[in-house]
């Protein structure tokens, strides 16, 4: 699940200042799970914008606004309304926002901040587990991602700043290298404990238009 958080309504109102007729799109997938883009949040956004004197031309929740196939299907339901819409407030991750922008060619205003790929513990409780680095090393790290869970993103062992258990940066969190070591020890992976990783190759992170 891609975690998003709600933007301050003031920023959204500010971004919408020039636009009178506004449509609102929610995401019924990830953003719905993290309570930033479900139907309830779409309704709340409509109320907030109406208070500012805006005319709401449509509201819709789309299953996966990041999926062009789904988007094309669902957008047909609001085709007529779209013609009279100046801007669309999108309550999804950045990918959904840009997919809608690309398809509709309308001004889009994002209502969320995109954070990271996260595990859902409960509704309202999420843990970051993946940064999408394109060089997954989980096979060799005891199944925990040190790039994501170490604030310094280290590969080859703990920094000098931990206190024996806790992380130097996030003092409430355990140093992830302790978990990594314990898991590898538990799995009997001595060869992985001794493994030295080469530095990351950032050239592979240059975003290509299509894969």
């Amino acid at each position, binding site marked *: 699940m891609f975690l998003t958080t709600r933007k301050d309504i003031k920023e959204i109102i500010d971004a919408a200042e020039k636009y009178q007729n506004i449509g609102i799109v929610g995401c019924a997938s990830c953003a719905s799970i993290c309570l930033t883009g479900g139907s309830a949040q779409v309704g709340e956004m409509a109320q907030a914008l109406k208070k500012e004197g805006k005319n709401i031309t449509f509201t819709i929740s789309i299953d996966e606004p990041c999926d062009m196939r789904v988007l094309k299907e669902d957008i047909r339901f609001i085709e007529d309304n779209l013609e009279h819409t100046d801007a669309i407030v999108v309550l999804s991750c950045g990918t959904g926002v840009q997919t809608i922008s690309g398809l509709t060619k309308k001004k889009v205003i994002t209502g969320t901040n995109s954070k990271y790929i996260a595990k859902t513990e409960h509704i309202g409780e999420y843990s970051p587990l993946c940064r999408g680095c394109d060089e997954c090393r989980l096979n060799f790290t005891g199944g925990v991602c040190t790039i994501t869970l170490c*604030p*310094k*993103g*280290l*590969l*080859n*062992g*703990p*920094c*000098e*700043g*931990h*206190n*024996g*258990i806790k992380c*130097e*940066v996030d003092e409430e969190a355990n*140093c992830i*290298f*302790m978990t*990594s*070591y314990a898991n590898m*020890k538990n799995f009997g992976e001595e060869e992985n*404990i*001794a493994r*030295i*990783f*080469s*530095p*990351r*190759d*950032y*050239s592979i992170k240059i975003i290509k238009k299509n894969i």
Partner: protein
Amino acid sequence: MNIIPEIESPLSENYIDFLKELKILLNGFSRNRTIDIKNIIIEQNFGFNAILLCKLISDENPDTAITYSVNMRDKNRIALFSDLITLNQLGLKNIIISEGLHPVKTVFHSAKPVYDIDVIALSSIIKKSKSINHLIENNSNNDLLDNNVVNTEDAAYNIGNFNLGVKIAASTPADMVKIKKLIAVGADNFIINSFTDNIGAIEYIKKEHKNVFIHINELEIGKTFNSLDEAYAKALNLKADGLIIKIVSPKINILKKL
């Protein structure tokens, strides 16, 4: 056993004043019976350029070993390679590397942390690379750790023979794994953060014929330790090769009070 001051490159004060202060500090040491300052560590943080400062101090104090200390927080591999080439050209062969305090723990709270290379990877690069051409060649191949190409054709660009220190923690089995990796890649000196060795790290490192230094902050004197002598005696008891004291402020500089 030496006491070694570790001093951050000055932030706000004029570096010429800083050098004068340092001279007073150095002269003061010779009067002290227990302390023999043969080494000074200049740590790059966000002040005056530490390599330049190392060079200035080195020129003025030819009998004192000057060590450049740098962290992985602020520099990517391009900037670190530049440091290595500069140090080598200036004849400054002592270097300490650490991962470094995260920006959120500094006054530059919102700065982007770099951590492009970690201490183990940079240690491997420093100890195994023979020349700048070699570094570039291996980087192009994304093969920084497998340095099996020897290029000694251009002596001016030879970056070998650094005396390499690494700052480490020494309190968990994961730290011991890291120590073993660092020994494998050729680190020479191990700087242990305070007196936290409860895994036999010092004994292990000494067995491998490497040097161990205990690192404390001067603010710990009077708190964790009653006196500098107490900290010194403790380090001596551990058979450490030196006690590094981070000087955090010229105003409270513990070494000036000796």
